[in-house]
Structure formats: C-alpha cells, structure tokens
C-alpha cells in the first residue's frame, strides 16, 4: 500500500521543515500564482526588501530573519494547507494572507499555534471574529465603502449611479457598503447588479447601463472585469466612469483598459509613497527597479511592525509580542500604526484616487 510510502514521504517533508533556530523565520502568504499573482508578487518584493534592510541593521534581537513564502492562490482550502506548513516551519510572524476568503480560515490555524499576523485583507469579518492574534494594517471595506459612497453622492450629484459587484466576498461586501453610504447621503443607486467574474462578455450589463442612462458605476471586484466593462462600454458608445476599491491599484488595469483607464476612480489608503518618512525606502525600491505601488510598501511596513514590536517586547514569544503589538505605536513606511482592541488600525483613512496616463494620484 502506498499509504506507508506517503506517510514516510510526508515525514521526510516534516523533517525538512524543522526550524533552524539560529535564524528567525517570518512568513508571507498570498496568491503567488493564479489570477491575482501580481498582488502576491508585490507583497513578496516588499517583504524581501524589508528583510534585507532589517538584517543589514543586525536583525531582530540579534537574530537574522529568514523569509518563508506561502502560495494560497486565493483558494481557502490551500490557505489552510499553507498555514499548517508555516506552523510546522516554526514561523514567529505572518504577513498575509491577501484574499479575505483565505485570511479568515487560515487565521484560525495561526491563532491556535500562537502566531501573530498582520494582514491587508479588508473584509470586516477578518477582525470581527474576536481573534487576538490578528492585526490589520489596511482599512476595512465598510470604511472604504463609506468614503467611496460619500464621494459619489457629493461629486456626482444628480447623475445616475449604478452599483455592481462580482459576487466575490470582497466585491459584494464593498459594493453593499458603497450602496449603503450612497443611500445615506440621499443618492439612491439607479441599478444594483451582479456579474460573474471570469466571463468576458459584459455587453448585456453595458446595454442595461446605457438604457438606464447610467454615467457612473461603482464596482466591487477586481481590475480585470473593470477593464473589460470599460472597453465594451466604449464600443457601445457609453461614456462611463468607474469607482472601484483598493484592487484597482493594479497597473494591469491600465494595460488592459487602454486610455479608458483614465475613467477609473478608486479608494485606497493615503499613498505611502507620498509619506516623507518613506522617501529613502521608496528611492531604494526604485533603484532596484521596483515601483513601490500597491502592496509593496505594506509588506515592508508589516516587517517593520514585527521588528519594532519584538524589540519593544524583547522577545519573539507570542504573549509579550501580542501585548507589544496591541499596546504600542509603530513608525513604519506607511505612517504610524496603532491598533484597537479588535486589531484594526486606529487611523486608517481612505482617499479617492484617479488613474491618469498610467499613474494614479489623488482625485481632485
């Protein structure tokens, strides 16, 4: 029976995974392959740079950091498997996962194994479940939806606004929040629709928008579909402005949508690249031919967070580390970080951006 073989083989993997205690293993996890691989790539680049910098400063508590990378491809089942692998590797800190639907099940593994984690997942559920090991260095979808909804209601007053989502946990959550905020400001959505992500034909939706005279579409979902909708809207002679969430930071949007990308507004945390304290790090990334866009600096900040918390706690054990993380204020490249009781960042703030000629900047 092959079962013994696999047991033996699994044992071999396990043996390989025994942590080497001369170094401190920290980990990142996210979609390194699959549809959202570009976000995983940003996280990896940010974390690698941060660890190189920290080690150049002499490491954390005299020990060098080593980076473990986990690929969950945004699949909840694989996320749990990655989490178990990481626990076996004896990591002391995790930055990830990226998709909310991966972060939620994986966090239950980390909390049992006493591993603190910093995530950029924006779904409210991430911190609402009362887990004490989870810290969010990004804002929440409800805050994000509030900012986007308010902006739409005031800037596009009197225009017809549709709210569309892609039926993903992230997209639907965001779209619902936007619709709620808009209604609260007296601008009821003219149309509320869902599409299936991964399809290519959105001409039906575009025709519907055109019939209803919609000029602005608030969209909860990922950038690929926005690019397709914009292209098909242009073909159908519909002048459409899109308001999206933090996923629109991906530069693939510009490649795929072409000039129509200039019609995209989105909400994201204040651009860390504009943070004067981050200037040297930004320079360093650019010198290494990496544009520190999207999640790059967040990954960098997560590693800084760990460095400072461990130094303050004088330990990398869970209990003092968790206490230090919850109690302290940390100076990172994305600004000062402090957490509330749930583990949410205390002053997140979202700003509205606009793509313009392949770059994004604050919208006027």
């Amino acid at each position: 029976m092959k079962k013994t073989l696999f047991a033996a083989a699994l044992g071999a993997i396990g043996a390989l995974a025994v942590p080497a205690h001369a170094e401190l293993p920290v980990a990142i996890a996210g979609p390194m392959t699959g549809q959202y691989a570009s976000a995983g790539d940003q996280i990896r680049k940010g974390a690698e740079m941060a660890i190189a910098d920290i080690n150049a400063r002499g490491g954390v508590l005299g020990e060098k950091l080593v980076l473990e990378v986990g690929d969950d491809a945004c699949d909840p089942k694989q996320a749990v498997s990655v989490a178990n692998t990481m626990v076996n590797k004896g990591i002391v800190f995790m930055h990830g996962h990226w998709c909310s639907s991966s972060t939620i099940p994986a966090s239950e593994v980390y909390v049992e194994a006493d591993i603190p984690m910093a995530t950029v997942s924006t779904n409210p559920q991430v911190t609402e479940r009362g887990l004490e090991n989870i810290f969010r260095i990004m804002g929440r979808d409800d805050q994000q939806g509030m900012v986007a909804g308010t902006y739409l209601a005031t800037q596009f007053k009197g225009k017809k606004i549709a709210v569309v989502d892609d039926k993903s946990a992230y997209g639907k959550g965001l779209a619902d929040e936007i619709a709620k905020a808009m209604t609260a400001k007296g601008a009821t959505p003219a149309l509320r629709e869902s599409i299936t992500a991964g399809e290519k034909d959105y001409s039906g939706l575009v025709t519907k928008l055109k019939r209803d005279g919609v000029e602005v579409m608030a969209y909860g979902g990922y950038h690929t579909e926005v690019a397709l909708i914009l292209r098909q809207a242009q073909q159908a002679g519909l002048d459409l402005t899109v308001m999206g969430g933090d996923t629109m930071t991906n530069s693939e949007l510009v490649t795929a949508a072409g000039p129509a990308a200039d019609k995209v507004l989105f909400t994201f945390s204040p651009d860390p690249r504009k943070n004067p304290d981050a200037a040297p790090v930004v320079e360093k990334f650019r010198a290494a031919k990496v544009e520190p866009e999207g999640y790059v600096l967040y990954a960098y900040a997560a590693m800084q967070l760990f460095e400072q918390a461990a130094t303050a706690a004088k330990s990398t054990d869970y209990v003092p580390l968790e206490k230090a993380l919850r109690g302290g204020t940390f100076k990172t490249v994305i600004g000062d970080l402090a957490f509330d009781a749930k583990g949410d960042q205390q002053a997140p703030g979202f700003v509205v951006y606009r793509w313009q000629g392949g770059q994004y900047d604050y919208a006027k």
Partner: protein
Amino acid sequence: MSAVVFAHHRMSPAERVRDAAWVAFVALLLGIPLIGLTTVDAGGRLEVSTRFGMLALFVAIAFGGRIALRATVDHFKARKLARQQARGASEATAASTTRRVSTWLGWFALGASIGLPILFSDNRYVVDTATTVLIYVMLGWGLNVVVGLAGLLDLGYVAFYAVGAYSYAILATEHGWGFWQALPVSGAMAATFGILLGYPILRLRGDYLAIVTLGFGEIIRIILVNWTDFSGGPNGISSIPRPSFFGLEFTRRPAEGEQSFAAFFGLDYSPMQRLIFLYYLILVLALLTHVFVSRLRRLPVGRAWEALREDEIACRAMGMNTTNIKLSAFAIGAMLGGFAGVFFAARQGFISPESFVFTESAIVLAIVVLGGMGSQLGVVLAAALLVLIPEFGRNFAEYRMLLFGAAMVLIMVWKPGGLLSHREPTVRLGQREETPA
C-alpha cells in the same frame, strides 16, 4: 498505423531517429507559439519577446526523450513477451494472486492509517494532509457507488458535498445543533437532494446524464453564492463549531460550565489533540462507509447496481425496476457525499462556495476512475496520489498543477482501467467468498 507508442516489431536505429525527429518537429510546432514567443507588458502596451534558446532546449528534450522512451518501452515489451512465452501463466492464478495481494495491502493500509498520527503526533502538516486524503477517500467511495457500481456518470457530485457541508453549517451556527446530531440529518438532506435530482433525469443516458449533473452542481453553487440570507453568499459561513469528544471541547479555555478535553484527561492543552481527533473521526467515518458499501454490494440492491452497469436492457427484460435501482444508487452516493461534507465543514470551520466548484467534482471522479472503477482500495490509492502530488509539488511552486495534469493523463494512458482494475461481479453463483478489497 504510424508510430504508435507500443510498436510490435524492433525498430532499426535509423527508424528510431526518424521517429524522434518527427516528434521533435511536432514539439517545434507546439513550442513556437507558447515557448518561442511570448508577450510582455512594456509600459501599457504588449510587446513580443522571443525565447528561442528555451525553444531549442524544449525540442532537444523532446527528441532525446522520445528516443529514451522508445528504448525503455521496447525493452519492457521484449521482457514481458519473453516472460509470457516462458511461463504461459494462467489468468486465474494471476487474478487470485492480485486479489490476495490487495487484501493484504488493505490490512496494511488500515494499520498504517491508524498508526500515522501516533508517529507524527507533533507534525500538524502531516496529520492535516492525511485528513484531506481521507476526505477524498470518503468522497471517492461515495461516488464509486454511483459511477463504479451503478455505471451512472455523475459530474456534479460536489453538489451533495456542498449540501452536507451547508446543512451542518446552518444547523450548527443558527440552531445550535452539535456535530453528532447534525450528521445524520445532513446526510439525509443530501440523499433527498440526490433523489430530487435523480428522479426526473434518470431516463437520460450516458453523457446526457453527465451534463445535467454538471449543471445541477453549478446550480447549487450559484444559489449558494447568491442567496445571501440563507447561505451567507460569497462570504460563506464562518465560526462553525468543531465536533466535540463526547461533550468535551478541544479548547484552551472552555466555556462556562463545560470541560475541555485536555482538562478532563489531565493533559496539557495542545492544538494537535483536536487535529488528531479529527483525523481519527474521518478515519472511522471512512471505515464505516467502507463496511457499509461492501455489505451493500452483496445485498440484492448492490447486485442490481452491478447488473445495471453491465446491461440495462437485460435488467429491464428481467423485470427489474431500473428507476428505483438508479435512484437508490444516487441517494446512497449523495448521502455519503453529504457525510463527507459535514466533516469538511466541521474541520475547516469555514465554508464558502469557492470550495464547491466543478474542479472538485472532476477530481473526485478522477479518483474513482484512476483507482479502477468499482475498486475500494483503488480509490484509496488514487486519492492519496491526487492529494499528494500537488502537496509534494509545493516545492516546485508553480509547476505543481502542471505535474498534476500531466500525471492524470499519464496514469490513464499507462493503466486505462485504473490502478487496481477489476470489473468482476462481487457475487457469483456457486462462489460465495472473496470480497474485493
């Protein structure tokens, strides 16, 4: 017939080179558009970049690989032929040896699976992966009833898995049911869905049945995604309670008035206790499934399934009620899938529609077919293989799914009947012993 992989005559070296050159030429054709050329993003526009070095390497590998493959295949062919001529072995002894070996293997597998968590009691990853293997074993055994025994092609098996998982999740989170109360109810729920689906469509044949079951699987998933009030929509259902050990919870700090497993047995709390408990739980569920299915196979209903698989018209001519027989296979298969779903929900603690996509159905079907349809031990083998290939592949990161696909094709081509194939009826007239493992 041109150059088939299994040639019957010895080829001359010139022929071998010609044959390999042809393969290399095809490799070149296939390689040009995907390997030789690629498009890269150059600041908002695509640009074509070339990788002719890699293409040349690919063609060279195809050429060399073909020669090596031919040589190996010829070598084995020749040896097999020689052996057959020398022995003239009777089919019957071979068959009975295989059967003895597989019975022996079955016991060995059982022993190994019982011992595994003891050997790896501090390794989360091993225990967790073994649990996943067992979930697939159970799903495979369930689908085996439908596909392997009754011969009905079901491409939407994941629907019943989902029904089981969501039934438990909803019963547990909204009505406070425990795992053990919800298990039979969820199984019955899945079986009901099996009958509901089965009744109208069972007069369809073969591949028409396949597409309708595929559609049914998708319908269930789409409803789960969209009916937010009922299923939590794309957010899924989180914080699903874990099964308890006769009322003892596996928590560090048990709730007021309850006792934790660790405290009751005077152990130190360790998250591994729950993992190992879950592992044994699925092992017991799987073994019960195995016993249940092997017993059913010997009952009239089981024999009717096999008869139906072989010849439906003959069955009808014998006065058998084919609709009821098919329905029973569908319902029992669905129920077993539902049980696996309940366990899945309890183990993950979080379910969302993303776990119940078509690929999952395809993998379970692949387990049944790769294992050798109708073979219980074959399912175990195939499940272990299909779960472990991608897991081992984690070291190769992005190549792992590529290997997975290639392995599926290669195993099928190598053993078209499955790893352990036998299509023998379970019971024969005048021969009452011999259970296929």
